[in-house]
């Protein structure tokens, strides 16, 4: 464990640039239209890719003739799965440390069989995208349909057709956990609630679709890929594996990335195919998915069915939770992260914020013929929170206890850490109660309850007929600063140890290199703030370089709320080291003891009289141009590099609480979100301006999943709403102002103390919105347990419409 960052005179170094609402210098690039996303990058002799994708959910390839495409204008090459296979390696999205997980081999393009609508079947390379698309349509493709497997329950039936001949069932993964006395806890409970919940699949819908520009350098035998990605280092290993070449023969550069939210951290067959084609053709090839392709080929997430139960004793104390969860995860487990971590979070975290000591959980992940499944912001945390918090509210309602008071009575207290949940999840230090208290203050809980009571009285008097208001609370945990427990130990090439390099430039500035990417989080600015304080330089003199495997140290990348906590700590340590080296150099230059000097804002000061000895600029000048000015034999060292991995916990959990205030019109089923609040504890806050809007953005995505978003599949496995006109995401007019508060509990596993803040906003949002709706509907004795809570579902819940769902 490292000591807290403090100067020798005891002043907290974090009090300077860290914690300031510094605006992003790079923002000016984006407001002037000068961003450079992958589709904007110039390339000499560029070729363009287009794909033929499967129009059916399940079928055998009967005929696939590329000749008509190859005869088309501007076409340079075309490949199907068989043509590409000799030049690439398949992947298998297996995490080796998970017992009972199985996954099939996946080739970049389908071979023999297609298994979801949108699976890439053939690739055409042409002189323009339009010509490539024309040619892709000319490919003669015939198939024989096989029965689609849509319902994960049916896919797991013993007599269900097997999706992969090499596997003995369609079960991708199953796991259970149970404490010794769970049966007894439910048997002896004064109150037991049971909810059958269902969530529709959603997709991240980053506004910039996935894309890459791949180039092969035959002279160096080297692939360079520019792409929108969160994980350049992981993608280096992925492309190396697919091409069967060494990691060091691949360079991955993260272009400006137009949102990602977990969608751009995977090995996609279409991207692999483009890399292979670029190597074969020796010319740069670009592919950017269009929106329709994005809907059917980006990973989907969060489609679960779960039965959740909670037991409460006679004193109103939660004693046990139980969850039985089923998820349909598409035909392949996405490489290299696998498609099962969402369910693993449900297993690990349902009920985990509460004192209940007994727990039982079962998770099952089925393979089926729907789009491939993977990580989306928050992964399984929002689901664990939804299942838990819906059950907690249902219990409080049944007992007639105010849901805020019920939570205060049952949450794990803030002085009980480190804490191990009944599932085995370990929490370093949480502030659940403090966050809930701050939330209640921020939202004016009592005032809103009073408003709700007035409304009820109005109803008695005949006013506001049919319009009900409700308050929903949710308490959550969210993992960050991961160890290798999720991926590295399972064999996935995703680093847990990040590096950072810091050096004094010849101009007297500080240049930093970290292996992260910035897809809008503002981590470039956060890193500059960290470096400024660590080194003792002014933030305007800091330059941060990221996202290029050629010029940065290794990093696991920017996902799972890990970037600032892990790379930031490496940068902090590198900066501290450089500061000491520079002070030693300045002391040598000015013939004094290093202990007599300190470096503040780019100036070396004498500790005794605070007199300026020299500046970073002057020191750089001496180091690089006037080495004779140093004492004989003294070699100043103007660069430092450090690495950091968090190894004490599987992850450092952040926590928080959120609340929603909604109005439900029972005449139309429409729901209006009147207010939303989040209190988050992500440890040391680097930049409140950036963090707060990230929390709001994440909350809006969560509200979207709660109310609007869902990938709607027909019973033939066809995605029925693969356009932005039909897949509804939140727009400005539907969203309320969102109020943000903070509690700060730095992690003791790093000197910086930062945990992650990228996912907290979404984690509580689903639950607080759903709880608010059900609070509003409580006077009608109705509840909605399916997401998204559409007007139709509201009207069904209150019995206004009865006919079977179409």
């Amino acid at each position, binding site marked *: 464990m490292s000591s807290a960052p403090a100067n020798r005179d005891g002043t907290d170094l974090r009090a300077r640039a860290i914690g300031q609402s510094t605006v992003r210098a790079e923002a000016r690039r*984006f407001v002037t*239209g000068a961003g450079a996303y992958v*589709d904007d990058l110039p390339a000499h002799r560029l070729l363009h890719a287009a794909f033929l994708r499967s129009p059916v959910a399940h079928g055998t390839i009967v005929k696939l003739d590329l000749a008509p495409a190859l005869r088309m204008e501007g076409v340079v090459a075309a490949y199907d799965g068989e043509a590409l296979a000799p030049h690439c390696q398949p992947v298998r999205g297996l995490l080796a440390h998970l017992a009972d997980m199985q996954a099939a081999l996946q080739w970049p393009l389908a071979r023999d069989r297609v298994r979801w609508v949108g699976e890439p079947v053939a690739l055409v390379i042409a002189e323009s995208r339009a010509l490539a698309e024309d040619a892709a349509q000319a490919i003669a493709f015939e198939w024989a349909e096989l029965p689609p497997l849509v319902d994960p329950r049916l896919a797991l039936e013993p007599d269900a057709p097997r999706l992969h001949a090499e596997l003995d069932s369609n079960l991708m993964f199953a796991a259970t956990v149970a404490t010794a006395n769970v049966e007894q806890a439910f048997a002896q409970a004064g109150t037991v609630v049971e909810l059958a919940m269902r969530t529709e699949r959603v997709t991240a819908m980053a506004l910039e679709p996935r894309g890459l520009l791949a180039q092969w350098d035959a002279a160096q035998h080297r692939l360079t890929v520019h792409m929108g990605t969160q994980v350049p280092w992981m993608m280096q290993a992925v492309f190396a594996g697919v091409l069967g070449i060494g990691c060091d023969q691949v360079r991955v550069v993260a272009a400006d990335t137009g949102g990602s939210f977990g969608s751009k951290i995977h090995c996609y067959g279409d991207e692999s195919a483009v890399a292979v084609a670029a190597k074969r053709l020796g010319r740069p090839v670009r592919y950017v998915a269009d929106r329709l392709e994005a809907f059917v080929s980006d990973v989907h997430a969060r489609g679960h069915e779960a039965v959740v139960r909670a037991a409460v004793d006679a004193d109103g104390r939660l004693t046990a939770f139980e969850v039985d969860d089923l998820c349909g995860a598409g035909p392949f487990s996405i490489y290299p992260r696998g498609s099962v971590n969402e369910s693993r979070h449900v297993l690990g975290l349902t009920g985990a914020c509460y004192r209940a000591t007994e727990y039982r959980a079962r998770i099952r992940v089925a393979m089926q013929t729907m789009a491939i499944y993977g990580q989306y912001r928050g992964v399984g945390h929002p689901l664990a929170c939804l299942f838990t918090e819906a059950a907690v509210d249902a219990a409080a309602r049944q007992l007639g206890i105010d849901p805020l008071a019920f939570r205060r009575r049952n949450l794990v207290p803030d002085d009980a850490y480190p804490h191990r949940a009944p599932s085995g999840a370990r929490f370093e230090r949480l502030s659940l109660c403090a966050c809930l208290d701050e939330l209640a203050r921020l939202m004016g809980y009592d005032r809103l309850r009073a408003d709700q009571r007035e409304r009820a009285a109005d109803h008695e008097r005949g006013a506001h007929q049919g319009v009900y208001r409700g308050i929903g609370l949710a308490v959550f945990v969210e993992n960050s600063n991961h160890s290798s427990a999720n991926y590295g130990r399972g064999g996935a090439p995703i680093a847990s140890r990040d590096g950072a390099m810091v050096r004094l430039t010849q101009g007297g500035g500080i240049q930093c290199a970290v292996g992260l990417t910035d897809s809008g989080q503002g981590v470039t600015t956060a890193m500059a703030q960290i470096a400024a304080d660590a080194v003792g330089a002014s933030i305007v003199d800091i330059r941060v370089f990221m996202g290029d495997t050629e010029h940065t140290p290794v990093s696991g990348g920017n996902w799972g709320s890990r970037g600032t906590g892990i790379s930031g700590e490496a940068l902090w340590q590198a900066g501290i080291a450089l500061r000491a080296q520079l002070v030693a150099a300045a002391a040598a230059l000015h013939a004094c003891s290093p202990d007599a000097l300190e470096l503040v804002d780019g100036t070396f000061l004498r500790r005794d009289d605070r007199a300026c000895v020299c500046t970073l600029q002057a020191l750089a000048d001496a180091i690089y141009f006037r080495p004779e000015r140093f004492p004989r034999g003294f070699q100043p060292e103007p660069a430092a590099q450090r690495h950091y991995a968090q190894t004490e916990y599987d992850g450092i959990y952040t926590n928080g609480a959120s609340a929603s205030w909604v109005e439900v019109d029972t005449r139309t089923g429409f729901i209006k979100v009147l207010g939303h609040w989040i209190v988050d504890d992500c440890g040391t806050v680097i930049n409140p301006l950036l963090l707060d809007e990230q929390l709001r953005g994440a909350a809006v995505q969560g509200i979207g999943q709660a109310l609007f978003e869902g990938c709607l599949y027909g019973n033939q496995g066809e995605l029925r709403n693969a*356009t*932005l006109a039909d897949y509804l995401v939140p*727009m*400005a007019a539907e969203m309320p102002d969102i109020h943000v508060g903070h509690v700060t509990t730095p992690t003791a596993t790093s000197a910086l103390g930062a945990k992650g803040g990228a996912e907290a906003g979404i984690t509580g949002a689903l639950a607080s919105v759903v709880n608010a709706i059900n609070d509003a509907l409580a006077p009608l004795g109705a509840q909605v347990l399916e997401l998204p809570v559409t007007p139709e579902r509201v009207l069904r819940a209150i019995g206004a419409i009865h006919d079977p769902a179409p």
Partner: protein
Amino acid sequence: MESTTDIEFEVNGKRVRLAVSPREHLADVLRQRCGLTGTHLGCEHGVCGACTVRVDGAAIRGCLILAVQADGAQVRTIEGEGNDPVMQALQQAFIERNALQCGYCTPGFLLTAAELLELDPDPSRESIREYLSGNICRCTGYQAIVDAVELAARRLRGEAGTDASVP
């Protein structure tokens, strides 16, 4: 070879003559033929607003108008708005209020917001939200965008206490 049609239009104040394919939409032509990559494509079916450009003054979807339809028109993209005082105020406010994250939607939001402020120099938060409801931002919570448009409007009205605080 595909047949082409000659068009002549004004892009950011400059006359441009091009032979375009009848199927090319304006956003593709601006991006691929004029090098104006600040116009982004998010859906190409008119929903997301990332490709918003101004054609004869109106903020429209660059993906829903064919390039041949822009023959004779005046087209302005984000790259051509650098000297416009309304746009400058908006850009500055967007930076200060962190009204963008990945930046992909940002040019579309700015051009739409500029049209709003030209029509209504003092919009309420509600009407800002309504006016911007044809543009998707998947990163922010929209709140910072609304804040920024409000701030820019106040500055353009010359209200006190709204001086730019950062470069």
